[in-house]
């Protein structure tokens, strides 16, 4: 089977369309970054508190809002996570509610606000850890066997496993545990003495102090910069410097459009999204390098032809490979985006967009820059640059 055979598309002839396309997307993204949504930093970069909760019933966002209001919290956002049937909500507390002195105060307030009608002095079974449950069992000794670390450890583990792995993190009542394997009836019966069962379980909490946030932002910017510099140096070393410049401009274009897309859609740019972008810097370069490698090879073979013809030929020769590998990588990333779950959504979205843009740009941006540079030199009356690069 073969999709592309002896294609002969005049890519360079379409460079003005490409330029227009890239400009529109870059500028739209840039506009949004500067004047609209700005860069929607995720909680890891802007600081703040993120509490991800699953309820045992359909949550009433208005009720949650007024409970949080009553708890004295002001700067928060509530948003549904995933499908409505998941009963999941994300509570996002601004960094203004997160002080370095008492980092987890916001989280505690949220949990307290959600635990309405808490029986005095009781602990929430849905949000108790293995250690808490084990300590309780050792203290209380419902099986009358003395503080047997192993036995009660196993019982506590069975309770936690049943809650988290079978019931998805939320129990409706302690009686449900009777169906759990490895939990003694006497243990289940004794739980209500100390525990009550709330209507939610905390799935994930992220608290980032303001200091870390700004520190991470600097680091992310630096890491991106180092990545680009690394590429420039490596490509300058392997090819002529203009190849390095063309590749870095291309990658910068990809990064700009990807970040711009996140800004336009106002999707949080978290640490993992930055990781995806750094990966894309490497990946997008792959495609560019493959085309450049071929250009370099062809320059040696076709000394008499115009550079633009050589470049066109090289792109066409590698087109099959470019589209295929991009398609295959895209396939895996799409699987990640569709089936990889909520936590990886931003990460896989960045990869999905980045791979599309990265493939496009290695054809539409990188190669034309080489030709444009050549034309510019000829216009200035200098002799054409020796594009063949160093012998390897």
């Amino acid at each position, binding site marked *: 089977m073969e999709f592309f055979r002896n294609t002969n598309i005049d890519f360079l002839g379409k460079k003005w369309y490409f330029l227009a396309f890239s400009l529109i997307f870059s500028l739209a993204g840039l506009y949004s970054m500067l004047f609209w949504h700005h860069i929607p930093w995720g909680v890891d970069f802007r600081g703040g508190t993120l509490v991800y909760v699953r309820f045992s019933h359909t949550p009433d966002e208005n009720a949650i809002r007024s409970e949080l209001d009553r708890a004295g919290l002001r700067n928060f956002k509530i948003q549904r996570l995933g499908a409505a049937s998941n009963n999941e909500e994300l509570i996002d507390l601004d960094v203004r509610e997160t002080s370095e002195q008492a980092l987890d105060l916001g989280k505690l307030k949220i949990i307290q606000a959600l635990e309405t009608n808490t029986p005095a002095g009781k602990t929430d079974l849905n949000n108790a*850890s293995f250690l808490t449950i084990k300590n309780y069992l050792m203290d209380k000794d419902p099986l009358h066997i003395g503080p047997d670390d192993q036995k009660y450890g196993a019982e506590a583990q069975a309770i*936690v496993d049943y809650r988290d792995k079978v019931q998805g993190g939320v129990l409706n009542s302690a009686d449900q545990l009777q169906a759990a394997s490895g939990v003694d009836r006497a243990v289940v019966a004794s739980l209500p003495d100390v525990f009550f069962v709330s209507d939610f379980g905390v799935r994930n909490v992220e608290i980032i102090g303001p200091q870390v946030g700004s520190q991470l932002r600097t680091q992310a910017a630096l890491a991106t910069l180092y990545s680009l510099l690394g590429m420039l140096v490596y490509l300058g070393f392997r090819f002529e410097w203009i190849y390095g410049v063309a590749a870095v401009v291309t990658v910068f274009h990809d990064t700009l459009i990807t970040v711009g897309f996140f800004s336009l859609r106002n999707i949080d740019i978290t*640490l993992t999204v930055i990781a995806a972008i*750094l990966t894309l810097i490497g990946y997008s*370069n792959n495609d560019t390098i493959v085309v450049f*490698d071929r250009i370099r090879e062809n320059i040696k073979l076709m000394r008499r032809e115009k550079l633009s013809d050589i470049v066109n030929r090289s792109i066409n020769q590698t087109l099959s490979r470019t589209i295929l590998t991009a398609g295959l990588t895209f396939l895996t990333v799409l699987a990640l985006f569709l089936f990889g779950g909520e936590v990886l959504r931003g990460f896989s979205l960045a990869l999905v967009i980045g791979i599309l843009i990265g493939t496009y740009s290695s054809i539409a941006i990188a190669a034309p820059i080489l030709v444009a540079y050549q034309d510019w030199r000829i216009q200035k009356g200098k002799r054409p640059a020796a594009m063949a690069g160093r012998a390897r």
Partner: protein
Amino acid sequence: MNKNFLLKLGSIVAIVLFFLFGIFGVPKSLSAQGLLAAISDHIHLGLDLSGGTQLILQVQVNDAVNVVAQNAIEVLKDQLRNRKIDFADVTQPDPQNNPDHVLLKGVQASARGDLLSIVQERLPEYDITSDPNDTWTLSMKPSMLTDLKNKAVAQAIQTIRNRIDALGVSEPTIEEHGQGQYQILVQLPGIDDFGRVKDIMQSTAMLEIKQALGGPFPSEQAALQDKGGVLPADSLLLQGHSMPGAETEGPAWYLVSRVSAVSGKDLRDAQASTDQNGQPSVTFSLTGEGGQRFYSFTSAHVGDNLAVVLDNKVQEVASIKEPIRDQGSISGGHMTEQQAKDLSMVLRSGALPASIKYLQEETVGPSLGADSIRAGVRAAVIGMVAVLIFMLVYYRGAGINADVALIMNLIILLGFLGWSTIAGVNVALTLPGIAGVILTVGMGVDSNVLIFERIREELRNGKTPPSAVDQGFSHAWVTIVDTHVTTIVSAAILFIFGTGPVKGFATTLTFGLLANLFTAVFVSRFIFDWVLSRKQRGEALSI
């Protein structure tokens, strides 16, 4: 079959077996469950998959520097008095930002020689420079300063580890985080409500026993008035628990000696107990040397009062009835039984050399971790199968070749994670790490495509299959190296700058691509050669 062929086959089989052992070890049973259990024994899961808590702590290293500087000030005053050198004042001008600077005022230049010898002999960690107006600045030698700060972090890590171990948290990670920012990363698998753990970790637990010189006073002003407006030299005012017998609850102030008779360093053991009133308390015993010092102190001060000070707060004041050698107790402050237990544990684990600030806290509930594993594995399997099928359909015979290489790539990558556990390095598989595995599949197949497309091209140009294969590999090789280097450069930067999950991603991606160099080039070439060796001359290659 020539010898070279057998050698290559042997090394490929050996490598596969080696990494398979990394994944499974020797499984107890070959059933699906047995294999799954073997995998989960060998592949260490990151916190985002196993559930648990991660904290990043800032060690306030300046605290430790301040302690040394305070000590230097005392030594300096002492020495100056001994040598009968006049001085106006010794202070720390800026304990917040430059805690290592000590300012000495009012010493004339004629005393220079004496001053230099004091610093050289008694404060070798300091440099001294003279400023105008009879002022001198002592600043710590830069190497000493970094050393001190690093030691503070190392000691904090050790102390926190002792405390967490005593709480029975399994497999915690406690290590320095970042470069030279004096931060500590703490990972507690399986802990998702850790209020108490956090209190225990944060407690400085600096225990000191000092001579009580006066008090209790209801306020600082009252204490000052009592002493005629000026505190006696070498004493300081500390807050304590409420005034004994006072009707209203409120803080009380005590005047205590600046120098401690014994401190937390001299503790041998501490246990929760109850005092004579049946209240929870903590008893401690001292080391031989500490006990000796305590004995001579108490012998000299029979009838005087001593104060037990914890984290700069007076816990209790008692009079010395007779010399004490090696026992003491802390009570007062209405401790609960749990608090007494925790305090004794914290005292046993040693004091933190500096206070600690929380910078970041992340808790992943175990239910989310379990969901993430499920989603990640599902995405990986779907992505992988899609790629495998595509390669088969598109390249037919050569597709098998690519698929074998991809599967081997996966085995090597997972085996590497398994071997890291066996070796005790524990490179954890995180959710982004699973994404890295998926991405390795997608990017790894790039090498195969590059080679195959080139072979097809060479065949089209009329080359024979053996020479097309040869040309295809040699031309594609340079490009493959280039593309791998750029991706690995990105991943390396990620590894340096990322934490937990992101690091996991960088690791799997890097190692996956390295393994890909081996599988997509060496193994794939081997299979081609094998296929070609079985073909007749001129027979077509399935690609």
